[in-house]
């Protein structure tokens, strides 16, 4: 089976910032959470995938095809949602639907779109400029899911949304992924959301992809505990991912495989891993 996303030696320079070289393979049928701090290169990667930016070097394959060879017909298999809905604000829901019907031709699924609009209770008569941010993002997602795409790319699509709407969005993503031919790459700051839905976590830091691993394996690899300074001194330096000093010693994230098995470690979250890795590096 072809991979959904294949990046080989992908590199892009933007002023002082350099993304990559990145090698990343995303198998079909999974949700990948693409995490990293602000300015790490998440949006740049997604823009490169969507041909909004041109790479300085490297190859990008989506659904087994080099994106430079993509025809308009092939592009119908890719759906995307950005951090806002980039459509003229004077469009009503009907205008948006007509526009997409003409844009996607036979691939456009009126029934799916109408069902999603009804599910989100989006108003028919208002123009987009009168939509709340949550409504705009719901509309963006409804549009993305209404043309039978096989790959869905989301760039900070849930940021700034209230927990109820975010939950609706996550439900929709889980429904979409029920088809094993479908794949999702979602970049987000809200790591608790990714914790709920992602199969894999890809972590990018300062333009470099540090890892891409299954979420379960990832959280099993690390553990958190509080140690005194004396106890910390006995721990192998290689085992320490990051630490936070406190009044009585230090809270430390450790690699389970490199510490004695009798040392009690608490389970970590994806957020812990990201925070400790970034802060650990700074120290």
């Amino acid at each position, binding site marked *: 089976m072809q991979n959904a996303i294949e990046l080989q030696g992908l590199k892009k320079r933007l002023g002082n910032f350099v993304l990559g070289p990145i090698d990343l393979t995303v198998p079909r049928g999974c949700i990948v959470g693409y995490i990293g701090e602000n300015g790490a290169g998440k949006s740049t990667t997604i823009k490169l995938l969507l041909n*909004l930016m041109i790479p300085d070097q490297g190859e990008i394959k989506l659904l087994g095809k080099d994106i430079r060879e993509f025809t*308009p017909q092939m592009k119908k298999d890719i759906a995307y949602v950005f951090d806002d809905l980039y459509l*003229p604000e004077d469009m009503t829901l009907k205008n948006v639907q007509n526009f*997409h019907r003409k*844009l996607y031709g036979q691939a456009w699924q009126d029934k799916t779109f109408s069902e999603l609009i009804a599910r989100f209770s989006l108003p028919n008569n208002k123009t987009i400029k009168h939509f709340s941010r949550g409504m705009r993002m719901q509309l963006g997602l409804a549009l993305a899911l209404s043309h039978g795409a096989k790959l869905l790319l989301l760039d900070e699509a849930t940021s700034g949304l209230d927990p109820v709407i975010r939950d609706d969005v996550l439900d929709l993503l889980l429904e979409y992924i029920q088809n094993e031919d479908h794949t999702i790459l979602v970049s987000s700051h809200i790591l608790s959301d990714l914790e709920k839905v992602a199969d894999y976590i890809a972590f990018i830091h300062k333009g470099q992809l540090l890892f891409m691993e299954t979420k379960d394996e990832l959280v099993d690899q690390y553990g958190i505990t509080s140690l005194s300074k004396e106890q910390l001194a006995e721990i192998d330096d290689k085992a320490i991912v990051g630490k936070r000093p406190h009044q009585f010693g230090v809270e430390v994230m450790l690699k389970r495989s490199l510490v004695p098995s009798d040392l009690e470690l608490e389970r970590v979250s994806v957020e812990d891993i990201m925070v400790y890795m970034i802060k650990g590096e700074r120290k």
Partner: protein
Amino acid sequence: MIALIYKDLVALRKALFSLIFIMFIVGFLTVRQGNIMTLPLMFILVPLILLGMLWGSDTKSNVDQYIIPGPVTRRTIVFSRYVFVWIVAVIGTLFTILLKLFLRDGILLEIPWYLIAVTMPLLITIISVIQLPLMYKFGAEKARLIFVVLYFVVFALFSYIGSNKELIAKFMDKLILLDLKIIGLAIMGVTILLNIISFALSTAIYTKKEF
């Protein structure tokens, strides 16, 4: 392509109604004053006004970022903008020919219909074909600044022509000797050539553009 034109029409819906209303009023006034030639010349300004509005709307909504990954090529996106200008050119030309058919006097009666049919597209598209590549390269704001400079250049050119009337007279003497159909063909050729060059330039610029 149809989707992109539809998007542009929706974005300009209110502006188009206002523009048509203003054109009716200006038309009514010019007919009353007997200055009928102002009517077709108004069409020269229409693409200029509409393109400015479209650019404003597109920049505000960031719509390029939405449509480029969609099922269209960048070339089609640029092409749709030219089609918009050409639609205005066709409407303006047909309007002028109809005006000629229904007029009983005036300068339009003296100009053969085929000369109108080739001159109006040139007049209506000429500013847009210069403006579009500039807008794609520098954005609407900087392109407007460049256009202000261009206005001064044109003004200086007309001043030069004004002070060298004998040159124009000589040129007109030679032009009168030519067959009007040949002149018409030349105008058509220039219009097509300018539009092709402009479209090629805009496409080349837009293809390399990053969002």
